């Protein structure tokens, strides 16, 4: 049974809450950054929330995900505590990685999030290995491997799909196609123009879906995951979406037009669309929507307040920390 069923009132409410939590979380990051309270860089997924929420809601307890540099949404949708994520971004000891990883490297292993990754396509080979591991251990867990449209041009993408295909591994490759790498459009970077179509080369069924329609994402992911879990081998979904913010802090948006950004924001926003659909279908009332928004706002306010009170790590926390076992020379 998927964890969230957005076709029910409870499920719709849960999905909307998570979407708003992601958006408020990332808006809080922008606010903290502009006030000089957040260092480093981060990659925001504002505008892409329906992908993370639709897919993670279609998973079961025990399923695993691997994430990317643009991973706050995946992390929250897979059950992370916003306060511990915020603490990580603030570089505090209560962060998921004790302040060692930051935005691009959050792992919440207890919840089944094997980690975000600062290397484009870096988690694709890891996801295949985790899927092999699940099968060898006789667990019926499915691994969802999130990756970007840009990652589909890395060798790791092709090696991962090939191995997963030839070994029939239980992994769903989930391309979050926001149509750009950093600045390069999918049209100019990707021969054939489609990530989904590449699945065929590896005997994997690939489908392109509307990534800004939460109900559609959830349905496609639930179907794909069920097929993978039933032993059908890997699956590939390409969810078309759009990021409103720059790639990261250094982006001056020179590679696209304001019109393009505005049209996605005004006409195809995943949160707006889901609210409208849920109200129109009677799953939620307008009051429910207001309540969810307020809930997410309060949740984040509280998370930030608690995270800033978490202490900064001290340098002695680094000693031996690169190793789980012995890190110094043996005494012969």
């Amino acid at each position, binding site marked *: 049974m998927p964890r969230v069923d957005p076709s029910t009132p409870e499920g719709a409410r849960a999905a909307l809450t998570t979407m708003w939590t992601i958006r408020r979380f990332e808006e809080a990051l922008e606010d903290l950054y502009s006030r000089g309270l957040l260092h480093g860089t981060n990659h925001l997924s504002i505008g892409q929330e329906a992908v993370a929420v639709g897919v993670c809601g279609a998973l079961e307890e025990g399923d695993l995900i691997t994430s990317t540099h643009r991973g706050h949404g995946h992390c929250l949708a897979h059950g992370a505590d916003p306060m511990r994520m915020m603490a990580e971004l603030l570089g505090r000891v209560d962060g*998921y*990685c004790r302040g060692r990883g930051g935005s691009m490297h959050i792992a919440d*292993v207890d919840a089944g999030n094997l980690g975000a990754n600062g290397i484009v396509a870096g988690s694709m*080979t890891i996801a295949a*290995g985790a899927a092999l591991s699940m099968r060898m251990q006789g667990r019926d867990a499915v691994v969802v491997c999130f990756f970007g449209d840009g990652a589909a041009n890395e060798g790791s993408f092709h090696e991962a799909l090939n191995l997963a295909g030839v070994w029939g591994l239980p992994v769903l490759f989930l391309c979050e196609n926001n149509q750009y790498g950093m600045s390069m459009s999918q049209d100019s970077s990707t021969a054939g123009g489609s990530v989904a179509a590449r699945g065929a080369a590896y005997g994997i069924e690939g489908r392109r879906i509307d990534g800004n329609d939460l109900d559609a994402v959830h349905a496609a992911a639930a179907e794909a995951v069920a097929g993978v879990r039933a032993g059908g081998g890997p699956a590939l979904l390409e969810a078309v979406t759009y990021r409103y913010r720059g790639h990261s802090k250094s982006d001056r948006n020179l590679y696209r037009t304001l019109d393009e950004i505005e049209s996605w924001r005004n006409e195809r926003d995943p949160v707006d669309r889901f609210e409208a659909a849920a109200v129109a279908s009677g799953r939620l009332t307008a009051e429910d929507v207001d309540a969810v928004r307020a809930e997410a706002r309060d949740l984040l306010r509280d998370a930030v307040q608690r995270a800033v009170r978490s202490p900064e790590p001290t340098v002695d926390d680094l000693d031996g920390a690169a*190793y789980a076992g012995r890190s110094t020379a*043996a005494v012969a």
Partner: protein
Amino acid sequence: MAEVMSTSRAINAAMRVAMAEDPRVFLAGEDIGVYGGAFGVTDGLLGEFGAERVRDTPISEDIIVGMAVGAAITGMRPVIEMQFSDFVVNAMDPLVNQAAKLHFMYGGNVTVPMVLRLPGGGGTGAAEQHSQSLEAWFAHVPGLKVVAPSTPQDAHDLLLASINDPDPVVLVEHKLLYKAEGPVEVRGSLAEVDAAFAGTVPRRTGGDLTIVSYSRGCAVALDAAEALAADGVEATVLDLRSLRPLDLGPVIASVTATGRLLVTHEAPGPVGVGAEVVAGVVGSEAFDHLLVPPVRVTGRDNPMPYAPGLERATIPQVEDVVAAARRLMAEDD
């Protein structure tokens, strides 16, 4: 009871012990199944343990190593063979950016218990792209461990210790050692080998100078020491065995006694393991006991050439070590 066997048999025996004992252990690599691996190291294991645990992979080094990382962080203990150490270059991301980083980067929430076996070194006529000694690269990376056995027994024990280790271990295997034979006590279980044992050990003792090496360099050093002994010069030969962490205590103690240090390895000298050893000794209490400046006898600073004479000239030979040792002995007389 020790029996005489080749290094490749000793490694094979270690795999058999680990596989029989721990269902989490599995092997993966190119042509390691029915073919038995390019150097025959995994011969017979497919028949014994089956294709699920002795996994032939596509020729895809990136995913071979990345797959191992994913399996390791989710509870398995993969033992990976790179067909030749040179091909690990195609897997640098999963090894250096992933395996070495995840435990630290994720705040200790995952461990990466995997072993990467790298058959390396020259002397086989395989030339530039199949003969390298890349160990210094990996010894440079925090998060990795690097071990380099020189005897069949150590090849056996170090593999078991590496499989038992919670961290990613790069096992440097010299291809010319695979056929070298020696007494091996086959261990009964993984736990019989203490992971902390892999410190520097003496292979020979003498009071006149200290020769430090590892992997196949130890055989060169020992032959050189015998030649020197004929002249009445007695050398201590130390085998580092582990390059990261590096156990310099016995080196410092030996140089304090002999006053002379020679480090030899097949890898080129610049920014190599020898430089690290020399720096460690010079920066220690042994400095005051040095009678002459330490020397390195390393691989020639060029890619491994094909022509036999050129290949030989690129790999440190016994006579090179003997000549350098004689100069060391002469300098302070």
